[in-house]
């Protein structure tokens, strides 16, 4: 299979990808003379197919498809949905350009070149699976199950992840959603309230919303944004704490232009004020609090003045925020955030947020933190077999946890260090399923070295990515529009409305094309080859979904009859669970050698002449996953770097200048981007959107577009309690035409 085709040539040759072509040219190329209709008909006249669930991101909105001649022409929100309704975001709308992307993986491929610099040869599924099964079995037999590492992401990755974790028995699973994203949040809240917090804030009914770094609007998940905007429309005051004037800051009542890394100091000063001025919810704390006195005593030093100095914001502004929160309590949404792997001091910040919510009495109250009561469905997967507790890299020789508050799996750095040193044991097999560890995990060169030393690497994905370049065997997966798998449950998005619950299952909107297969087929075949046939829990992905629906008394047929979504009566979301408790002080944390009350840990500041590299999201991309989508690429083709305008002027840089970067370790960005000057960012950092600058030439649209922020993160920080990464501790200088543009001494 030749891969040196240009996008255009491919389009011309692949009639199956014809939806990417204007109709006129298809007809013209077939007949030579016939002209197109001059008016496109509009999708609204086409056939509706129900049952879709989006996976352009993990929020998973409920969809319907419009099909014309068995081809999907448009994706819409399912009108029956009480979550996203008829609305879907830009990425959801652009799903058909993923579905029919000519660059998509089509056949099993074998790398006959080298890892990182592949030459692909098309092979049969039989050969591909045999190679995967045999090679992974060899690793298992030679090094034990712990010699296999897994980097999963997305709803298809759960089944294979469970196979390797539960049946084969390796601990060495690194989920990006935990170790590079939200794991710290989840374990910090579990250590405080016993529950992972999701983004479960009742914003539509809240009087004040506090966002620490969350940039809703640039970060888009449909029903979450609905909640946020409804809250603002209902008069909630919005406080946004961010070094940058983000999309959310632009809608805020108070923008706290905080110095990066100091958020915990800010939160401690607010808590100290609430406590000393007795502005906290004394009834709530008495009833549900534990360790309040330890907290009160431990944060006494945190005056507004002290925090103001640390955070580089006015003391009066911190007081203004504290008073607003106190006045609005308990109906305040202290947002737990989502991607929180920032500075390596993040567990303590997340603990602070959970404690602040408690001081304000804002759990299970209107406008506060309210998780909602979802219906139950099954979770059929591989049974957990007895595996010995050893070989867990997170446990040392004395049986002590290195990162006691690690999310499930094993902290990424422990896996990578073991792989590179062979100590305490070698890691020689790697399964990458839907994740892109090259552009997700800081220390890109380290990741490459880890992959280089493997005996075998397999990747499963829908698209070529920077990670698939490192596979020995690359398997094409069906997309979310062509498969069964995920069951989405939830409630109506606004708790002020009638209480309802929904259950919906992903059903294919169109048939798979080429030789793409689903996760159950691929995993089961590998399992058979590895000798785990008798452990296989389901034969098909459809069977898995049916079994999981059965728990709720539903079938796929029934769901289809109900237009893809089953809706039933809901429950009062504000009902407090009986044993609910807020641990302001947690002695388990202290016993493990960390501060038992929320504590501020300082982070390294940029060396002179450097700017902190901050990153975030744009609404049209889900990191690197959507970079090759031609509609989304055209909407935001690169990731301009935000630079303070006064600083830019002193550096002689202006809007649109093409620049690159060099970081504190001398690492240079491979590609360039443009400058966006603005007063809306501090002078000690720069900001860019994450996920750009892909290097895989098989992504004919997304390759080399913008700068890969992850590539500049060569300094690796680990949050000690959790083992998750801190990703905002790298510092850059700006380069133009290959030369460093120094920051003048006067700036």
């Amino acid at each position, binding site marked *: 299979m030749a891969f040196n085709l240009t996008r255009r040539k491919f389009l011309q040759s692949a009639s199956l990808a014809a939806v990417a072509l204007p109709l*006129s040219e298809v007809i013209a190329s077939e007949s030579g003379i016939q002209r197109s209709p001059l008016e496109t*008909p509009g999708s609204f006249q086409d056939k509706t197919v129900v049952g879709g669930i989006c996976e352009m991101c993990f929020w998973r909105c409920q969809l319907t498809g419009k099909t014309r001649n068995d081809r999907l*022409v448009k994706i819409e929100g399912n009108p029956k949905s009480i979550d996203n309704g008829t609305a879907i975001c*830009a990425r959801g709308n652009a799903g058909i350009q993923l579905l029919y992307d000519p660059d998509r993986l089509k056949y099993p491929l074998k790398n006959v070149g080298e890892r990182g610099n592949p030459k692909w040869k098309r092979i049969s599924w039989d050969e591909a699976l045999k190679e995967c099964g045999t090679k992974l079995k060899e690793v298992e037999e030679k090094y034990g199950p712990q010699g296999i590492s897994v980097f999963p992401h997305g709803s298809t990755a759960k089944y294979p992840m469970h196979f390797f974790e539960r049946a084969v028995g390796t601990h060495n699973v690194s989920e990006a959603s935990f170790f590079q994203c939200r794991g710290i949040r989840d374990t910090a809240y579990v250590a405080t309230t016993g529950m992972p917090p999701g983004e479960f804030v009742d914003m539509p009914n809240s009087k004040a919303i506090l966002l620490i770094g969350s940039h809703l609007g640039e970060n*888009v998940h449909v029903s979450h944004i609905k909640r946020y905007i409804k809250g603002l429309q209902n008069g909630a005051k919005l406080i946004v704490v961010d070094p940058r004037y983000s999309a959310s800051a632009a809608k805020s009542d108070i923008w706290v232009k905080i110095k990066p890394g100091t958020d915990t100091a800010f939160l401690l000063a607010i808590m100290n004020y609430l406590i000393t001025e007795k502005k906290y919810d004394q009834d709530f704390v008495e009833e549900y609090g534990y360790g309040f006195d330890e907290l009160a005593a431990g944060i006494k030093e945190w005056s507004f003045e002290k925090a103001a100095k640390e955070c580089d914001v006015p003391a009066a502004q911190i007081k203004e925020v504290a008073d607003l929160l106190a006045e609005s309590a308990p109906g305040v949404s202290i947002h737990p955030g989502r991607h929180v792997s920032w500075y390596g001091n993040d567990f303590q910040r997340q603990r602070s947020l959970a404690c602040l919510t408690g001081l304000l009495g804002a759990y299970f109250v209107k406008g506060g933190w309210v998780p909602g009561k979802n219906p139950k469905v099954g979770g059929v997967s591989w049974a957990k077999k007895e595996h010995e507790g050893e070989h867990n890299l997170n446990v040392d020789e004395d049986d002590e946890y290195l990162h006691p508050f690690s999310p499930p799996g094993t902290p990424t750095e422990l896996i990578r260090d073991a792989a590179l040193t062979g100590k305490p044991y070698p890691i020689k097999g790697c399964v990458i399923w839907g994740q892109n560890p090259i552009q997700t995990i800081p220390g890109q060169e380290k990741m490459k070295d880890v992959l280089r030393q493997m005996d075998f690497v397999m990747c499963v994905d829908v698209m070529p990515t920077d990670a698939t370049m490192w596979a020995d065997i690359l398997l094409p997966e069906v997309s979310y529009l062509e498969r069964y798998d995920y069951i989405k449950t939830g409630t109506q998005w606004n708790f002020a409305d009638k209480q309802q619950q929904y259950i919906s299952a992903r059903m294919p909107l169109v048939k798979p094309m080429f030789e793409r297969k689903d996760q159950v087929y691929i995993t089961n075949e590998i399992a058979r080859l590895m000798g785990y046939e008798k452990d296989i829990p389901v034969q098909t992905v459809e069977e898995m979904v049916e079994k999981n629906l059965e728990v709720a008394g539903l079938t796929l047929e029934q769901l289809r009859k109900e237009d893809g979504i089953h809706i039933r009566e809901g429950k009062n979301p504000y009902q407090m669970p009986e044993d609910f408790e807020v641990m302001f002080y947690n002695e388990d944390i202290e016993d493990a050698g960390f501060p038992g009350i929320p504590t501020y840990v300082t982070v390294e500041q940029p060396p002179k002449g450097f700017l902190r590299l901050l990153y975030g999201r744009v609404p049209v991309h889900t990191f690197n996953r959507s970079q090759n989508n031609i509609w989304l690429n055209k909407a935001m083709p690169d990731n301009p770097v935000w630079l303070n305008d006064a600083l830019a002027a002193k550096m002689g840089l202006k809007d649109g200048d093409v620049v690159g970067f060099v970081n504190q370790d001398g690492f240079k960005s491979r590609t360039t981007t443009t400058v966006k000057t603005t007063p809306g960012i501090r002078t000690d950092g720069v900001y860019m959107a994450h996920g750009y600058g892909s290097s895989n030439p098989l992504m004919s649209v997304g390759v080399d577009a913008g700068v890969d922020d992850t590539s500049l993160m060569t300094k690796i920080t680990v949050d000690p309690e959790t083992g998750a990464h801190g990703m905002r501790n790298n510092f850059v200088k700006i380069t133009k035409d290959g030369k460093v543009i120094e920051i003048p001494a006067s700036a």
Partner: protein
Amino acid sequence: MQYGMIIDLERCVGCHACTIACKAEWEVPVDFGRNWVYRMGPSLVGTEMASTYYPGLCNHCEDPVCVPECPADAEEMTFTDAKTGKTATVEVAATWKDPFDGTVQIDKARCLGCGACADVCPYNARYINPDLVDDVSDEGKADKCTYCKPRVDAGLEPACVQTCITDARIFGDLSDPDSAVSRYVKNGAVGIEPNGGELGPNSRYYGKKKDMALLMETQTPELANLSHVRRRAMLASLVKPAMKKAKNIGLLGVVGAVIAKGVMDSNKEE
């Protein structure tokens, strides 16, 4: 009746769902858009920091500057009110303002593809769609937002309104004082008038004072230079119908058309 659209900037989060839904609904070529979202700022408006969006689309103006520039021969057309079934026969060129719903539409079959309407529109709301070709124009036809007239006539919302994740886009009849769009106008929603123009744009914006100031400051367009536009239109009106006639009577025939397509494709390669 006059259809109009309100963009509520207090609700808009700049997510681009509207632009992508439109592309899918109407198969808009990748490099063009019937609507768009620009982000402005963060910058200072007076002493206040501000950042907002310009989700733009055709304004279906009260007094559209594009309509009178169309050089195509005027023909009688019968319009039907989708609601009442009433009809009216009016002489129009290849683009017009609908006498019943006030939308501005294009007859692609009669469009010469000269681009005069696109050039004169101060909002850049029109483009020449290179995929729409026939014997009149090998270079494409004028195209733009129709306020999703075919959908609306079928009782649906415009695609951009249906997909808007925050209900920031509101569509309706501006001549009905009780409509949601009219209430927004009463509350201060305004269109973007070009400098020195009085076009009466019917896509209107509502938002915080500083955001509206930023929108107007950065997005108020200039009127086009009419003499340039007209010179091009005149040339097109002379040349294009002649081409059509030539092809119709088979001077070029099948072979010629294939060659013409080859030329078109090779042009696109560049």
